[in-house]
């Protein structure tokens, strides 16, 4: 029965979906597609300069059928995961060490600052001379780019733990080790989460650049060779893949993880 109260209930149910936003987004995407279609139909040689969305979709079918797209995607994600996890595994303890000891921090801070300003991509030519166009080269670049942001964030995280927490623990008779375990480590957790997200973001860029430069198979390589082989539709397909994967990774994995950590550690002002 479709009574009035049932209708109201249905409306209330519907309101739980971010439908308005989704409709909006769909309209924008359709709008962009139309403009894109229009442009590619008016210019000369659209296959080279701006293939229409339809061609891009078709080329994606082609690449999925040949199994290339999933394999490239897998390669890129694997590199990101391996590279950034090693980067985080090294960067977090290093940042903690720097945060805990003033002398160590004073010693290494300027040097870290210098190396951070040498962007990871700029050291690529050096590494490529050492190890050639190999996976090792790409991993080194990812490691280099993801290490510094996390180390710096963790360092400031430890430093920003309010002094009153440390004082309170000391008056309860806590030893230095207990202060580190009970106060400084948990106190810097939100910064560790934020820094990880930042680092993975940098690593993502580095993966794409590394694959292009070192010619290792993956999404970066796909757009680079696509340009070489004059397959612009594959270039655009690769770009869309890169953009969409990052949005999914960031909005549905990294951001919720960060927000959750910050909330769990009770540092939200409510």
């Amino acid at each position: 029965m479709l009574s009035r109260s049932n209708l109201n209930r249905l409306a209330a149910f519907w309101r739980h979906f971010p439908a308005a936003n989704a409709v909006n987004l769909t309209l924008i995407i359709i709008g962009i597609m139309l403009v894109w279609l229009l442009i590619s139909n008016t210019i000369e040689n659209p296959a080279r300069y701006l293939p229409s969305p339809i061609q891009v979709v078709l080329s994606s079918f082609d690449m999925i059928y040949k199994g290339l797209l999933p394999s490239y995607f897998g390669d890129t994600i694997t590199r990101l995961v391996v590279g950034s996890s090693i980067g985080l595994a090294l960067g977090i303890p290093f940042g903690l060490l720097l945060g805990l000891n003033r002398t160590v921090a004073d010693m290494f801070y300027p040097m870290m600052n210098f190396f951070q300003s040498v962007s990871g991509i700029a050291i690529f030519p050096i590494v490529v001379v050492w190890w050639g166009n190999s996976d090792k080269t790409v991993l080194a670049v990812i490691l280099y780019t993801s290490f510094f942001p996390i180390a710096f964030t963790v360092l400031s995280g430890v430093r920003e733990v309010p002094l009153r927490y440390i004082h309170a623990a000391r008056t309860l008779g806590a030893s230095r080790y207990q202060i580190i375990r009970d106060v400084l480590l948990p106190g810097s957790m939100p910064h560790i989460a934020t820094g990880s997200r930042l680092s993975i973001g940098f690593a993502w860029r580095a993966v794409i650049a590394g694959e292009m430069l070192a010619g290792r198979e993956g999404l970066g390589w796909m757009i680079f060779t696509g340009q070489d082989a004059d397959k612009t539709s594959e270039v655009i397909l690769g770009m869309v893949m890169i953009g969409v994967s990052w949005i999914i990774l960031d909005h549905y994995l990294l951001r919720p993880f960060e927000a959750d950590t910050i909330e769990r550690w009770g540092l939200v002002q409510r």
Partner: protein
Amino acid sequence: MSIVATASIAIQRRFGRQRLRQYILGSIPFVVLISAWHMNTVFEWLPPVFIPAIGEVWDAFFILQEDCAGVGAALTLDNSCLMSTHILSSIGRVILAAVIGLPFGIAFGILAGMSRPISKILEPIGIFANSISGIAWIPLAIVWFGVGWMTTLFIMLNTIFWLMFFNSMMGVRGVARVYEQSVLTMGGNRLDVITQVYLPGAMPSIISGMRMSMGFGWRALIAAEMIGGDSGLGFMIFSSAEEFKIEEVFLGVIIISLIFLATDRYLLMPLEKWTIHRWGLVWKPT
């Protein structure tokens, strides 16, 4: 009192004990690293093809500049003045991209911050453009503009514009409505609101965005020059690596980071610090 002790006290007074300690401690890793680098050359732990001698890196600068006809030729980016041409074309692109990209980014950002409909359209596009990351645009840019100035400039502009757009938009959104209302009740019009409320109110965020976009832009530019450039420092290190001229690669990398460090520390950071203090906020080092 010995001369050493007197000098040490004078230095301590000049810089402050804490500062001095930081300088000395901070220089230790650099000294160690440079000595290790030098020792590597002396004892040949790693072959000079992998790690060049310090002297060679220093000489490379002058060798690259050797054939230069003079200041005039250097300024016109003549191909005979390799070193200065690479440096100047990279810096030139940065300036050009900043001059074009920053005002546009700020203008669109403020507009989007003020108007919901505009931001609803531009924001998703911006999120998508940012997630593609400047570097992934390089192949398409090469298709459109070929290898050279236009491609590198496009990559940097693209990176700067969207970062600037987001920061300005967020800055405007953070401005309290009361300020707008107070200007309107005093008889101000829409333009007054923009120039007297939104622009100054968003200023700290805009300046931070400038610093951030220059950092990201510089990285993107180096990558663009490597893949799609025919001059500039990125092109230099990449092509030198292909010819195994490792001393030129080292030289290029050092120059790239020095230029970035100098601009960031002595231009952008003081500017950011000043704005944030001036607007009554607390600046935190990043």
